[in-house]
Structure formats: C-alpha cells, structure tokens
C-alpha cells in the first residue's frame, strides 16, 4: 500500500531530505558530548594532552585530503543524478565509497601503530578519547560506505535518484566531523 503522507511536502522540503537533516541534527550532540568531555579534560588538566605529539600530522592531513576529495566526488554524483544520469551517478558514488575505504585503511594503519607503541584505550587518559572519537567516526564511515553502495545499486538502474543527494548530505556531515577531529587531535596540540 502506498502511503500518501510520505509524498506530502507541507514544509516545502522533500520528506527524505527533511529526515536526513534531522538525523544529522541528532548526530551532532553525540559527537558533541564526546568532544566536549575531551575538551573539558584538556582544559581542566594542563599537560593531559601531551601524548598528542605521537600522532602523525601528515598521515592525518593525507586522510583529510582523501575524505574531502570523496566529498567532492559525491557532489559530482549529485550533479549527475540531477541530470538524470543514473549510470554516472552510480559510478561516482562507488568512487566515493572507495575514498571512504581508503580512509579506513589508513586509519587502521594508524591505530595499529599506536597500539604497538602501547597507546591502547585501556591506558586511560587521552588515548581512550582518541580511540573512541576516531572509532565512532570510523563506524559512521562504515555505515556511509554501506549506504553509498546501496544507493549506487539503485541509481545504476535509474531508480530513487533523489537518494543520491541524501547520502551526499550524510557524507558531508561525516566529513565535517572528521575535520573537527583532525583539528582537535592533530593540529591543536
């Protein structure tokens, strides 16, 4: 049965887009709470964040570049979908997903280096925040890759092209979160 409520637009935005904005709104406080706890610890305890110099700025910067480039690609996918070119949109979405996968590989390498150096989550202090913040973000990337591939499969058949923009919104959000993490963990030492 087709539900008519879904296709109504009394607020002037398509229902799916409105919902994605609210999903993003509900995600902000989750990262916000974690990062606020991290910042409170940093501000209240001088010297608490000294371990940050072990993080490799260049790896972080390269990962930022990877993620921002993938955001550009997802925008190009939206442009293709807006023209009705589902094939091209699907290809670009898959490229975006590949960017996300590359990001995760680099992240995994970084984690393994830290763990081998003894900077494990159970060491407490700074490292538990580093691992939980980047881990929560990585989980979002993983979810994003999954949805990107699902949307790409649909778009390749020319179906549900409006979803390309919606996953793009989410991907930009994940990107912005990473930029915040990059600043708080890699740049501001």
């Amino acid at each position, binding site marked *: 049965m087709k539900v008519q409520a879904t296709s109504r637009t*009394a607020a002037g935005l398509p229902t799916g887009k409105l919902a994605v904005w609210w999903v993003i709104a509900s995600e902000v406080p989750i990262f916000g*709470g974690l990062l606020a706890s991290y910042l409170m610890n940093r501000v209240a305890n001088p010297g608490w964040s000294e371990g940050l110099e072990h993080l490799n700025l260049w790896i972080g910067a390269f990962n930022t570049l990877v993620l921002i480039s993938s955001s550009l690609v997802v925008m190009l996918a939206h442009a293709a979908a807006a023209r009705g070119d589902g094939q091209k949109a699907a290809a670009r979405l898959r490229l975006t997903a590949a960017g996300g996968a590359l990001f995760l590989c680099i992240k995994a390498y970084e984690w393994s280096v830290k763990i081998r150096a003894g900077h494990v*989550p159970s060491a407490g202090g700074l490292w538990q925040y580093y691992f939980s913040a980047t881990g929560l973000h990585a989980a979002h990337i993983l979810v994003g890759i999954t949805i990107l591939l699902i949307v790409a499969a649909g778009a390749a058949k020319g179906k549900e092209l409006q979803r390309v923009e919606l996953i793009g919104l989410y991907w930009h959000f994940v990107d912005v979160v990473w930029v915040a993490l990059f600043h708080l963990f890699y740049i501001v030492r």
Partner: protein
Amino acid sequence: MASITASHGDPHAVDHHHEETNWFLKYCWSTDHKIIGLQYMFTGMAMALMGAFFIYVVRMQIAFPGHPVPGFGIVSPAAYNAAATLHGSIMIFWVAMPLIIAAFGNYIIPLMVGADDMVFPKLNRLSYQLFLLSALILIASFFVPGGGFGGAWTSYPPLSASGAFNLTPMGSTMWLLAVAIEFVAFLVGGINFIVTAMNARARGMSFTDVPIVVWMIVLSSILFMMSVGPLVAGAVMLLMDQNFGTHFFDPKHGGDPVLWQHLFWFFGHPEVYVVLLPPMGIVAEIIPVFSRKKLFGYRTIIYTAIATGVLSFFVWAHHQFVAGIDPRMANVFSATTVLISIPLAEMCFAYIATLYGSSIRFAVPMLWALAFVGEFLIGGSTGIFLGASGADIHLHDTYFVIAHFHYTFFPIAIIGTFAGLTYWFPKMFGRHLNEFWGKVHFWGTIIPFNFIFIPMFINGLAGDPRRYYSYEHFPQLATPGLQALRMTSTIATVVMLGFQVVFLVNFVVSLTRGRKAEANPYQANTLEWAAASPPPHGNFPVLPTVYRAPYEYNHPDREVDYWPQNEEPKEAIAVVSQAASEEATR
C-alpha cells in the same frame, strides 16, 4: 454528521481497503501507525505493572523492615537496591516514554494532521521493535547471575562502573545496553514524528492550525534528540569502562566520575520536559472540549513550550549542587532553574484561563486533566526549594526530592496517560469506557497518591535519606512518628495499586461490552474525530482539508457550539471537492 460527509471526492482514488488477513501480520508486523501506537501502549502498560511490583517490594521493606513481603519473601539489601533501581528505570524509560510520547504520538499525530500514516511507516515499525528488544534485554537482566542492575537509575560511577562495587556485573551492562537501544528506538521514532508533523499536514493546515498536543510531541522529540546525544556517548564510555578496561569515569586512573553526572543530567533534565510537554498537550486538547470554550492563548502556549525547551538545556547542574561543583556555577544554575518555572506556570495559567467562565463537564478525561494541572503545580512549586542551591544542600538525596519529582512524574506518566487514554478510548476502540467505574478509579488513584507523597515531604524535611534499605539502625530516624508516616505511604501505595485493578477490568470489559462510540462522541473539532471510530488502515475515506484553527468552540456565528477543522465554509464547497480530488491523485 457534517464533518464526515464533508469529505467528497473520488472514492476510488484512495485505495485503503487492503486488509491484512494474518493475525500476526496485522497486530505484530503492521506498519499502521495506530497498531504501532497500541503496541507501545500495551507494552508500556505491562512494564508499568512491573515497575509497580518493584516499588511495592521497596515500600514494604521500608515500612516493615525485615518482614517477608507477600508475593516476594524476605528482601535482601541487594534485592532492595535492584528493585529501587529498576522501578526508576522502568517508570521513566519503559513507561513514561512509550506511553506518553510513543503511544499517543503514533496514534494521534497522523490522525490530527489529517494524514493516512506516518511518513516512514517501516521505520516506525522498526522503532517499536527496537523498543521491544530493549525491554526484553532489561527483563532478561533480572535472571542473569547477580540479578538486575542495583546501582540506582542514575547509574553514577564509580558504583556503576565496576561489578566489584555494584555486585551486578552482568545486570549493569545489560541495563546500559537496554537503555542505549531504547534511545535509538526513540530517536528513530522522534524523527518520524517531527517530519510527519512538518511535512504531512493536510491541505490548508498551517503551523497555527496544528493541535497543541502535536506541537508538544514534536517539541519534546526535538528536545530528546538534542539532549540524548551526550548520554549516548556517555553510555558507550561507561560500557567500555565496565567491560573493556578504559577509565573514563574511574578516579583511580585519572578518570572523572562527575563527568558522567554532567553527561547524564544534560540529558536527564531536558528529559523531564521531554515527557512533560506531551501530557501538557493532552490536557490542552481535553480542557477546551469539556469546557466548550476556545483554548486561551494558543500561541502563548507554544511560545512557553519553546522557552521551556530552550531553558531546559541550562538547568542540569542543579542535580549536582552537592557533587563538589563550583559555588559560582551553582548560583547560575539556581537562577536558570527558578527561571524555567515561569513559562510552565504561564502554561498552567493559560489552561486555568480557558476554564474561566466556561461550562465545565466533569467527564472522566476532564477529571484527569484538571488533576494533572493541580498535582503538577504542587510538584513544580516544591521544585523551587530544590532549585535554590542553599536549600538543596539540606534537602538533597532526601525523601523531599522523591516526593517532589513524583509530584511531577506521576502527573506526567500516570495522570497524563489516563487522561489521554480515557479521552481517545472511543476513537481507539470504538466503544466508551464505563463512566462510573472510571470515576471510582480516578478518585481511588488521586486520593492515595497524595497520601503516598505528602508524608514523604515531611519525612524528607526531617532528614530521611533516600535509597536506605532500613532506618532501624539510625536512632534519630527510627522514631515512631517517622515510621508511622513511612507506613502511611506504603499503605497508600498498596491501596492505589489495588484501584488499578478497577481500571484494568473496566478497560477489558469496555473493549467488548462498552457503549458503542460514534465518530465524534465529544463534538470536538480536531481531525481525528473526522475519522471513523476506530479508524481503518489509511484513516480517512478521503484525506481531509483544513479550514480553521483547532479550538473554535462556542463561536458566535454558529448554531452548534463546535466547528470541526475540516468542515468547509458554505461558499467554498465547489472549490473543496476539486481540491480533495487533487489531493487524492497527488
């Protein structure tokens, strides 16, 4: 009836006659918002019985320490802690939230905005299933080694962070997991409520034509969404502290236990308003209908609700005045806490102003609505004592606090639910509840309720600390006078619980034997009364069009004293049938 015959148009354009034949598909796997609402309601009611049983155990132990409790046996200290913890957790997360937000939100939002369902029916089903899963995990935790979680519903570390302290290692992890899954369920459900109310409104329904209760449920969903995030993060951190060796909250290894209190109450205090706003809205629906008068200050009520929502993010630390926070910060939070009572008082004044000069019908839903305003005002005004940091240092963690927040939460979760349930019962089940037994149940609940909690104010002022297993070994607290008051509370609890049987019997009997209800038994204006009682899957034969605000009672130009939102103005009939058919083909 004008409101029903008003909906013309092509009857074949909307095909909602698809009926699920399989019982399981119809009642357990449905995407129909009404079925999901009822699923939430019956689950919430079952959990309420569980929460009630736990408090019965706790109260009996306090009144008759060391004596076996009928139906339970001797209460050990660990069982006492678990029962008190689970009573609080269940009543807030598995009773107040599902009943007051999810059950009514699901049932009435699409009906009141004139839609055929939620905008995301499958997500809606998922939301209930997640909620059910969380309830099952919680129930399962009663039976694991160590039993259910016994570290209080606020789950403060270090007590909650280590099984060595709370003695319920598995129970505490399952409790956290259940709470976290429940949050996800309500985030999913909340997004559905918000988007439905924003986007799926009927043709012609502007934001100021939306009934107050829909506004309230949407605002509370937004509040929940904005406040719960830090606690989701906090719950994950605490889970890792319990199971993976991190030390976020462990002071021995550089962690900070007060951080949990911040994360918890940053959610915990807005949560009070998350569950308060919907019953405020339910009361705003009931009062105009049973006083046959336009709701006083429609916009004012919405503005005060928004002001409450904004302020609620700046009051959380009044729970931590004795946790060693900076006294300068305590001053700020005292001020914001007192400030937040202003918009809420204003809301209550708007309801009282609606009653002024009206012709009140003391039907059962109206009795509950009036009781809500009266009892909640007691809760609100005693909160001022606790919001003032100086007084709070004396009263903190005493029975005064317990009495205060039960004077807020009982009206919210219990009185609000009974108000809404008795009001919409004819719509939900097509029959009326018995009026006489409804009144017996009302007085049998309200009178014992006050006998439970007024003694607690007195005991709290005398210094009774909360959460104590037994007062026998504290000479200054074990006086016969104080113990008599404790017994009064306990006896009143048992009496009140006994009267709930009246409701359950009335409910079950009325389902099959009650007087048949027509579509609009109260002659009310809002759109849910334009649908049949009970509404079929798809709600309306043709989706309605809205012409006016929801509370036009006793309009001077009208012969009848109500004016349904969807009744078309006489000159506009031709335009309307065209509009309706456009809507149907869209």
